């Protein structure tokens, strides 16, 4: 089962976990990405996430399809937030359930690593004294 969502509403971690719960799965791995209060010692006031929605959904499905090819995994949930986020807000939740834990760990790690490389989502960090599109410049 694959469940992929972009949402401007707060993410519901419990619901993501519930969706991936499966009696054939002994191991579930969850990654939760949260807004930190600091980046390189500058205080973050807020982050603004935007996305190229149809392509982002497509790329997230590609990640899930790749995982099903590579690992014995049963369920993949990827929910990503958009809009204005503050310290402590959850930006992304990824849940992978599998018969055995090794696959769940490896696939979940692959999912977040790949999401950060391929899914068209951008964040702007807003500081007290300026703002920057993350990773835009080398």
């Amino acid at each position, binding site marked *: 089962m694959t469940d992929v969502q972009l949402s401007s509403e707060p993410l519901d971690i419990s619901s993501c976990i519930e969706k991936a719960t499966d009696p054939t799965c002994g191991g579930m791995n969850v990654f939760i990405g949260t807004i930190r209060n600091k980046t390189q010692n500058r205080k973050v006031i807020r982050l603004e996430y935007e996305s190229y929605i149809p392509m982002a959904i497509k790329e997230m499905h590609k990640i899930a399809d790749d995982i099903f090819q590579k690992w014995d995994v049963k369920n993949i949930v990827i929910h990503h937030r958009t809009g204005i986020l503050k310290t402590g807000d959850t930006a992304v939740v990824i849940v992978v359930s599998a018969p055995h834990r090794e696959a769940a760990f490896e696939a979940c790690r692959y999912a977040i690593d790949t999401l950060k490389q391929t899914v068209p989502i951008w964040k702007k960090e807003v500081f007290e004294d300026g703002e920057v*599109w993350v990773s*835009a410049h080398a």
Partner: protein
Amino acid sequence: MIRLLAFGIVKDFFHGSALDIELPKNPTVDILKKELNSLYPEMQKLASYMIAVNNNYASDGDIIYPGDEIAIIPPVSGG
């Protein structure tokens, strides 16, 4: 005339979320990138950028046909 969708920092370069530019008929992605780099030299200061055609990452040699949805994808930073 080709409509380019802009995201992230590219919206700042374009001063908007879309841009129409003139290109030869059925250009390759490479031709589009060259034109873009010349119109917006800031593009070359990006760590990298990609062109998406119809919601897929395109290669330099891919041809752009009328009606394709073209987007400029600066370095992504989700998560």
